């Protein structure tokens, strides 16, 4: 079992079902994520526990989630709306995970990287990587912790 794996699954499910009315299901560790370029959203946690949470979603799923969140017609989501939607999603999941960590901790504003961009957290190691399926599309949530070495 990875660090906070069950909790991450629970809160990701809660956020998706309550905020977006989308059901999600966990994918097995062995599931290979597609090599397509991903839209990345992250929040950082600072304080007694230091690290970052990163959400990786394929572009098609970003469109679906954004259209649902802002009640848009298919294909009408702007890049700003996509950033806001994924930022809100990672912020809500991050807020719930933060509450499980040693306090006090602060949550940063979301940081986004568009398809084709990459996002790295130097001096950290990935401690949890959970994969999910939503609307027939895979996405992943990763937790990075400051590497004491």
């Amino acid at each position, binding site marked *: 079992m990875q660090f906070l794996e069950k909790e991450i699954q629970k809160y990701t499910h809660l956020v998706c079902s309550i905020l977006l009315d989308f059901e999600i299901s966990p994918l097995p560790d062995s599931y290979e994520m597609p090599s397509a370029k991903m839209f990345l959203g*992250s929040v*950082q*946690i*600072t*304080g007694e526990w*230091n*690290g*970052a949470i990163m959400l990786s979603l394929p572009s098609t799923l970003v469109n679906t989630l954004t259209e649902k969140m802002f009640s848009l017609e298919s294909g009408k989501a702007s890049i*700003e709306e996509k*950033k*806001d939607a994924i*930022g809100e999603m990672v912020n809500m999941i991050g807020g719930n995970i933060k509450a499980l960590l040693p306090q006090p901790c*602060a*949550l*940063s*504003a*979301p*940081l*986004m*990287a*568009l398809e*084709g*961009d*990459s*996002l*790295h*957290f*130097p*001096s*950290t190691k990935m401690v949890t990587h959970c994969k999910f399926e939503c609307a027939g599309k895979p996405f992943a949530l990763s937790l990075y912790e*400051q590497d004491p070495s």
Partner: protein
Amino acid sequence: MGDFETEICQYTESIWKSILDLDVHKTVDEYCPIGGENILAGCVHISGEWEGAVSIDCPMDLAKKVASIMFNMTDEEVTPDLIQDALGELTNMTGGNIKSLLPEPCFLSLPAVTMTQHGLRIPGSELVKSVTFQCWGYKFKVSVLKKLKN
């Protein structure tokens, strides 16, 4: 608290000189990456009594040269991880200095580094000040962003 321009200039010149032995100077020409250019952007978030972020955007070629100096390697020897580490370290030092100007308590996040062709995107934040610097033939910019009130 002003718009941080003086402090951004002072800290950036001092950090790049002390860590890299490089002279960097503010330039009035803004760093506007051309389309398709790979930019490396480092960011640290500040949380607490003041909330926002400090970022450095620079061309990949400059980031590579910075890493080669910081880790005493040739351009060919530096790996992508080391390039990210180097920019992350510069961003962390710049952010740490800016944090010291802010009301306490404030906390500095770990750095995040993104390779992008679009620039850094931090929804819910507004730019307070961005200063462009020149180093060798390259430009880079240091920005302070403040979280928007909900």
